C-alpha cells in the first residue's frame, strides 16, 4: 500500500475534528449547566483552531496559522474566560427548562444535520480538504439558530451566536484553500471580541434591571 499523502491524512483529521465540532454542538443543545456549556464552546473552538492548523500545514499557508492562533487566543481562552466571569458574577449557573425537552431537541438537531448535508450536497466537489465539512458548517449554523430560539438564558443565546460564527469560519476554511484574506480574518476576530464584550455588558445591565437572565421576561414591547 502506498504511503498516504499528507493531504489524505490532513483530510482525515479535518473530517474527524469537524465531526467533533458537531458532537460538541449537539452536547451544547442538551446540556443545561451554563459553565459546562462555556467549556464545550471552548473545546469546539479548539477543534476549529486545530482544523486551521492542519490546513496551514498541508497547504503551506503561514497566514492560516495566524488564524489558528487568533482562534485560540480569542475563542478558546479569552471569550470563555469572559463569559465564565460573567456567569459567576451573576451567580446563575443553570439553564431553565428549554422550550423543547432534551430528546426532542436531539432528534430535531439530527434532522437539521440531515438538512445541512442535503443543502450543501451540490457543493461538496468544491471543497478543498475534508469531505462534507461544508455540511457540518451548515449544520452548525442551523443548530446554532435552533439553540438560540430554544433557550432562554441570555448567556446561552450569546453562546449560540458564537457557535454560528464557528460554523461560518468552518465554512470559510472548507471552501477556500488559503482562507479568507488576513485583513478580513482580523476584522472578524475583533468584531467577535467586541460583540461579546458589548453583549456581556448588556447581560449585566439586564440582570441588574430585571433581576434575572431569563430573556423570556423581555416581552414588554409588542406589536
Amino acid at each position, binding site marked *: 500500500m502506498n504511503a498516504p499523502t499528507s493531504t489524505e491524512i490532513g483530510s482525515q483529521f479535518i473530517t474527524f475534528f469537524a465531526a467533533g465540532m458537531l458532537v460538541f454542538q449537539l452536547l451544547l443543545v442538551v446540556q443545561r449547566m451554563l459553565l459546562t456549556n462555556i467549556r464545550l464552546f471552548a473545546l469546539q473552538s479548539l477543534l476549529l483552531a486545530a482544523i486551521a492548523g492542519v490546513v496551514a500545514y498541508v497547504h503551506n499557508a503561514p497566514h492560516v496559522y495566524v488564524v489558528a492562533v487568533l482562534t485560540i487566543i480569542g475563542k478558546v481562552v479569552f471569550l470563555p474566560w469572559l463569559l465564565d466571569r460573567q456567569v459567576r458574577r451573576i451567580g446563575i449557573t443553570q439553564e431553565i427548562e428549554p422550550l423543547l425537552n432534551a430528546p426532542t431537541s436531539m432528534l430535531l438537531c439530527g434532522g437539521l444535520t440531515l438538512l445541512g448535508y442535503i443543502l450543501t450536497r451540490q457543493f461538496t466537489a468544491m471543497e478543498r480538504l475534508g469531505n462534507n465539512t461544508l455540511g457540518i458548517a451548515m449544520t452548525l449554523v442551523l443548530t446554532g439558530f435552533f439553540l438560540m430560539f430554544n433557550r432562554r438564558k441570555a448567556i446561552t443565546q450569546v453562546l449560540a451566536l458564537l457557535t454560528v*460564527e464557528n460554523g461560518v469560519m468552518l465554512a470559510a476554511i472548507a*471552501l*477556500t484553500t488559503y482562507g479568507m*484574506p488576513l*485583513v478580513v480574518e482580523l476584522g472578524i476576530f475583533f468584531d467577535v471580541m467586541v460583540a461579546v464584550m458589548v453583549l456581556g455588558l*448588556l447581560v449585566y445591565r439586564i440582570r441588574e434591571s430585571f433581576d434575572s437572565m431569563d*430573556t423570556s421576561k423581555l416581552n414588554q414591547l409588542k406589536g
Partner: protein
Amino acid sequence: MPLLALLIFVPAAAGLACLLVRSRRVMSALGGLAYLTTLALGIALLPQVLDRGVVTEWNEFLCADALSAWMVLLISVVSLSTSLYAGRYFQRDLDAKSVTPGRVREFFVLTPLFVAGMFLVVLANNLGVMWFAVEATALSSVLLVALYNRKTSLEAAWKYIILGSLGLALALFGTVFLYAAAVGPHASEKLPSFNWSHLITVAPQFDHGLIKLAFVFALIGYGTKAGLAPMHTWLPDAHSEAPSPTSAMLSGVSLKIALYALLRFHILTTACLHSDFSRYFLLGFGLFSMFLAPPFILVQKNLKRMLAYSSLEHVGLICTGFALNTPVTIFGALLHMGYHALTKPVLFFAAGNIHQTFHSLEFRVIGCGVVKVLPVTVLLMGLAALAAIGLPPFGLFLSELTIISGGVASHQTTISLLVVVALLASFCGILQQLTRILLGARKPGDLASDARRMDGVPAMVLLLGSLLLFSVWLPAPLLELLHQAAAIIGGKP
C-alpha cells in the same frame, strides 16, 4: 488630499476626543464640527467622482464610486442635523434627570464612531471590510439604543443586538460563499483581491450555484439590518426606545447603509447570472415589507413606533424600486433614499420634542391638540408628515411617482399597482394617527403651553428647508451623480 480617509478619520477622532472632554457643550461642538467637515468633504468628493468615475485611495482599500458618493452626502447631512438637535435635547434630558452625564458622554463618544463606521461601509472596497464596518455600526449603536437603561430600552437593545448579530453572521456566511464563488474556477490559487472593484470585472466567471447561495444569505443577513420584513422585528423596538437623535440616525441612514451592502451583492449576482434571480428575491421582500407596515401603523399607540413602521414602509419601497430594475425606477429609488433621509429625522426630532414635553410617547397620554402646546414643532412635524406620506410639492411624491411610472412603463404594472395600494394604505394610516394627536382641542386640565417650544427648531428647519429646496431644484451635479449611481446598480459599467 486623502478625502476618503479623512471622511472616516474625522468623525472617529471627534468621537475619541469626546472621551477626554468634560463639557457637554464642547462635545457637542466637536461633533458638529466633525460633521460639517465631512459634509464639506462629501461635497468636494462629488466633482472628483463625476470626473473620474471612481476615486480610490490607499492602494484601492478605499474606493468611492457614484453610489458611495451619494451615500456619503446622505450620511453627512443627517449626522449634521442630528448633532444640531442633540445638544438641546440632552440639555433638557439632563435637566429633567432622565439621563446621567455619563450616559450623555456615551452618546457623544459613540455617535461619531457610529458615523465613522457608516462611512467605512460605503467607502470600503474589500467586501469583508464592508461586513466588518456594518458590524461595527451595529455594535456602536446598541449601547446608544440602551442609553436610557429602562427595562424597555434594555429589551430593545437586546433584541437589536441578537437579531443584528445573527443577521450579520448570515451575511458573513454569504460573504464567505461569495469568496468561494470568486475563487472557484481558479482552484488552488489565491484570489488576487476581494475588492469590489475587481470582483465586478470578473463576475461572469463566478460559480453559479455558490453565488446564488451567497446572495440568499446576504439578503437575509443584510436584510435583517436593513429592516426588511420578516426580519424587521427589532426595528420598531430599537427605533422607539433609542433617544430621538439616535432614532433619527438609525431610521435616516443606518437602514440605507445595510441596503447599500445588499445592493453590492445584488449587482454582483446579476452581473454573474444575467438573470432575474436576485431581483425577484428583492421584489418579494420589498413588497412584503410595504404591505406589512400599514396594518401595524394603524394599530400603533406609540408615536415613535409608528414612525419606525413608516420607515419599514419606505425601505420596502426603496427595495422594490431597485428590484423593478429599470433605469427610471432605480433612479427613483436612489432619489427616495435621499428625500427620506431628509424627512424622517424631522419627524423623529418632533417626536423627541413631544416626548420631552409630555414625558411619554403614548397617544393616550399625549391626548389631542398638541398644536396648542407646541405650535412650531407641530407645524414642522405636519409639513414633514405630509412629505413622508408622499404629497406634492415635496420630493417624496416625485420619487414615488418615478418608481411607479417606471414600473408601469416597463410593463410591470401589477407590481406598480401593488406599490400604489401599499403607499395609499400607509398614507391613510399615518394621516389618521397624526391628525388625531396633533390637531383638535386640548382637554381642560392638560398641558397648556410649553415654554421650551422652540427647541430643536433650527435642525428641523434646516432639514425641511433642504428638502423643499431639493424637491423643486436638483442641481445638475447631483442629477448626474444619481444617473451614474443608477447605471452602476443597473449593471451598465
